[in-house]
């Protein structure tokens, strides 16, 4: 991708873009050339080639890959095995070490080349540089998951390990510590190491060079993890001096040292918290880890996991973290938009999950930060650990019952066209349905609002999923005894969403199953209290009666809007449905001459005008058999003429719909009725519609 940009930046002095392909192939040629010289019998040539390869691959992942593909590793391994010349040993070991440095494919290749024992033998060389090179390479290998298993239980291996730890050479002692850090796994191994005196050896490294300190901290963490006896032994060394040293190192100038010492303390705290009675230490541990989260490299990745491990299940530490602004800091990092390493994402979400696990303040704080889109994206991440962490985070955050929180939840617009979406898997809808049955009316209301938003623009599959979830619980229980106006509003919205196909007018095949079920839903709604702004849902009769009744009672604009949309949707159904709507609009016999449709069309609320016009559109859709009769009726009632007065409605949406109606109307005027006035009106309308 980037090479294309370089193409554009190319000055005109060069010949052509083919110079780039030749550049690529010439570099390929150079690589092949140096590779062939690796096999040279002449030691001078071989040495030079080894050095060249080494210098090309160090720091350069791309080159490591391309040399790897050429088969450089086995070639270098042979050079190492077949030579006794110190320079060749140094260069080949260094090259192999570089292949293994942070590059899993390289580690694999080095191990596959069978050169591991040879590297071990280098440690006994009389040449210090050879020892250094060997020790470094081995350390790179042991940092990988693919490193050979080290059997600490074998006495020979223990002896060897301790000989490494005792070495004056810092690379060698560092190797010893690295082996422990990465290969020690079981409690038995920890025990055996402690009894052999490994802790005493390791702590000496704390006063050594930077790399020794870091290797020591890593290995301490491994040996002490979940082993109270080992921890007590460590703390007991020189009356707690080394615990203090490690604590001091959390303020070291080097971030990696700070990180490793923090991780060590986290291990100690999780294993034996009694050594951390001091609030100050706990607090500074939390804040140091929080600072380290901002490190862009590996330290930041590991700090996130470290933090989640530290605050797990510990309410007091979660509080400390919250007070130190952890939530905002973490959310800011997540929102930076740059690609974060999966480990870091996992750590950050787990930390958030822990923060939200017990503390209501945390949950509110978190949900107020509009993180939900990011959270949902994380639910779809290709790394399973990240998905799991995001789910736990979501689940914990959703425990909150505050309305504001649920209000934020209702802003989720989830697209789960695949029914197997993680959200559903983890019971997102179930969660909301549960909440919609809460004792607290505000909670019920907010949950319904969330459900309603979920169903917005939902496809048939999603709706059916909802039905299947809801059926299991019994839909009637969605509505509990005391209705609040908000609940009803949301319930209507919810039903609206469920019964809506799309917003656009469509006379084509409705989805009978969904619509029928929507109407069935309506039928099942339990009776509530009547008041001037509420709709009543009859258990027995169709909601339509009630909706119609309410509409005829001059409701407030918002209610009228909802009611008209209900009618719109019903009118988009079958003939029977359209007729039923007509019944509601113009009941026989008419008790009052009050024609609410006319009133609505003259309303100040553009949405109400719009909703009313929609209903009309659906009622007279030309493809349905009864459309003509309905059109006649609408004309008689003065609805169509009213629409003609509204061709210049201020609201664009309304204007467009009216034109739709009027153009539909054209098809209803029978050709036999060629009255000059009608002709004239028709002509001017045509002109108006199509030429203005």
């Amino acid at each position, binding site marked *: 991708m980037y090479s294309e940009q370089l193409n554009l*930046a*190319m000055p005109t002095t060069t010949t052509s873009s083919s*110079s780039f392909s030749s550049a690529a192939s010439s570099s390929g040629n150079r690589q092949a050339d140096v590779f062939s010289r690796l096999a040279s019998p002449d030691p001078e040539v071989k040495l030079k080639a080894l050095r060249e390869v*080494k210098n090309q691959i160090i*720091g350069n992942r791309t080159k490591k890959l391309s040399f790897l593909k050429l088969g450089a590793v086995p070639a270098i391994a042979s050079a190492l095995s077949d030579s006794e010349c110190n320079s060749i040993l140094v260069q080949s070991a*260094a090259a192999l070490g*570089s292949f293994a440095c*942070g590059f899993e494919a390289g580690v694999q290749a080095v191990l596959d080349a069978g050169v591991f024992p040879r590297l071990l033998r280098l440690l006994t060389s009389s040449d210090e540089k050879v020892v250094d090179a060997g020790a470094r390479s081995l350390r790179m290998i042991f940092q990988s998951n693919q490193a050979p298993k080290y059997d600490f239980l074998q006495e020979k291996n223990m002896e060897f390990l301790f000989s490494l730890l005792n070495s004056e050479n810092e690379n060698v002692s560092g190797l010893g510590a690295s082996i422990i850090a990465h290969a020690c796994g079981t409690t038995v191994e920890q025990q055996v190491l402690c009894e052999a005196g490994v802790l005493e050896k390791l702590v000496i490294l704390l006063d050594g060079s930077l790399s020794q300190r870091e290797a020591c901290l890593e290995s301490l963490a491994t040996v002490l993890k979940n082993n109270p006896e080992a921890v007590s032994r460590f703390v007991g060394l020189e009356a707690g001096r080394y615990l203090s040293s490690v604590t001091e190192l959390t303020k070291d100038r080097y971030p990696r040292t700070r990180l490793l010492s923090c991780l060590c303390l986290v291990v100690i705290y999780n294993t034996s918290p009694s050594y951390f009675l001091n609030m100050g230490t706990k607090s500074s541990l939390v804040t140091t880890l929080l600072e380290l989260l901002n490190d862009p490299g590996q330290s930041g990745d590991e700090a996130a996991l470290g933090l989640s491990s530290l605050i797990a299940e510990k309410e007091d530490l979660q509080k400390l973290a919250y007070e130190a602004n952890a939530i905002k800091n973490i959310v800011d990092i997540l929102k930076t938009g740059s690609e974060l390493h999966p480990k870091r994402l996992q750590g950050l979400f787990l930390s958030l999950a822990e923060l939200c696990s017990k503390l209501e303040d945390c949950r509110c704080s978190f949900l107020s930060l509009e993180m939900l889109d990011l959270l949902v994206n994380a639910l779809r991440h290709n790394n399973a650990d990240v998905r799991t962490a995001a789910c736990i985070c979501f689940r914990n955050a959703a425990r909150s019952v505050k309305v504001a929180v649920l209000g934020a939840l209702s802003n989720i617009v989830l697209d789960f066209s695949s029914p197997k979406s993680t959200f559903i898997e983890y019971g997102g809808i179930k969660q909301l349905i549960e909440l919609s049955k809460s004792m607290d009316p505000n909670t019920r209301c907010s949950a319904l609002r969330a459900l309603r938003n979920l169903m917005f623009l939902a496809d048939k599959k999603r709706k059916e999923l909802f039905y299947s979830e809801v059926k299991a619980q019994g839909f009637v229980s969605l509505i509990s005894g005391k209705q609040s106006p908000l609940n009803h509003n949301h319930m209507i919205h919810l039903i609206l969403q469920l019964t809506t196909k799309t917003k656009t007018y469509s006379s084509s095949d409705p989805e009978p199953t969904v619509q029928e079920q929507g109407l069935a839903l309506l039928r099942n709604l339990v009776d509530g209290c009547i008041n001037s702004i509420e709709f009543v849902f009859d258990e027995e009769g169709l909601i339509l009666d009630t909706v119609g009744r309410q509409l005829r009672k001059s409701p407030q604009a918002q209610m009228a809007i909802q009611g008209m949309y209900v009618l719109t949707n019903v009118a988009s159904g079958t003939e029977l449905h359209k007729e039923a709507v007509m019944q509601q609009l113009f009941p026989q016999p008419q008790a009052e001459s009050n024609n609410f449709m006319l009133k609505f069309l003259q309303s100040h609320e553009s949405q109400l005008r719009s909703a009313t016009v929609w209903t009309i559109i659906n009622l007279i859709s030309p493809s349905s058999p009864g459309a003509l009769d309905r059109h006649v009726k609408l004309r008689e009632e003065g609805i169509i003429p009213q629409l003609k007065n509204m061709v210049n409605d201020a609201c664009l949406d309304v204007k467009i719909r009216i034109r739709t109606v009027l153009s539909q109307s054209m098809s209803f005027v029978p050709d036999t009725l060629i009255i000059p006035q009608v002709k004239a009106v028709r002509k001017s309308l045509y002109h108006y519609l199509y030429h203005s």
Partner: protein
Amino acid sequence: MATSKKVITRDEWEKKLNAVKLRKEDMNTLVMNFLVTEGFFLFPYGETAEIDLATITDRMAVKKAVQNGNVEDAIEKVNDLNPEILDTNPELFFHLQQQRLIELIRQGKTEEALEFAQEELAPRGEENQAFLQELEKTVALLVFEDASNCPVKDLLDISHRLKTASEVNAAILTSQSHEKDSSLNPKLPSLLKMLIWAQNQLDEKAVYPHINDLSTGQLQNPSE
């Protein structure tokens, strides 16, 4: 503008400064530390037993190579000294590669520079998005007929070499660092940071002569 802060005149300030007693040994240590870490002086006297002269020489050779524009040579020397440094320091490695490109451009070797940019620098950008911006700046040098007068001409400045040299020097020092208070840890930068911090703190309480230019250390009157 009315201020509730205490006002300290130049005279008063200088009197206070002169009243501070510094031990000569401390001054010597500081100067020695600077000379040793910057590689001017290979034979430290006074304290410091554990400095390996060979490593200082190696480190100085690397620094000198960068300062002279021989970046490839510098890279080879660093790798001989400790192959891990560049393998574990992607930012430093990128800056060295960048400097190499700059040198090629400076020498007018345009085609070689292009090849190098494509082969060596572009992958760095792919491996690590954080480098893309600097990468673009550097490649921009190739676009202009007269690179020494373009918007990114600062890259060609000798000071950029010094910056890169300093970065490498610091990385080597880090890898060689022994005790926490080793004389190989440069002390001057920390002292300067502390000076600035102290001035910032005092700013909230008083008006007094500042040192604004660290390179001259001149006091500037409060009104200036």
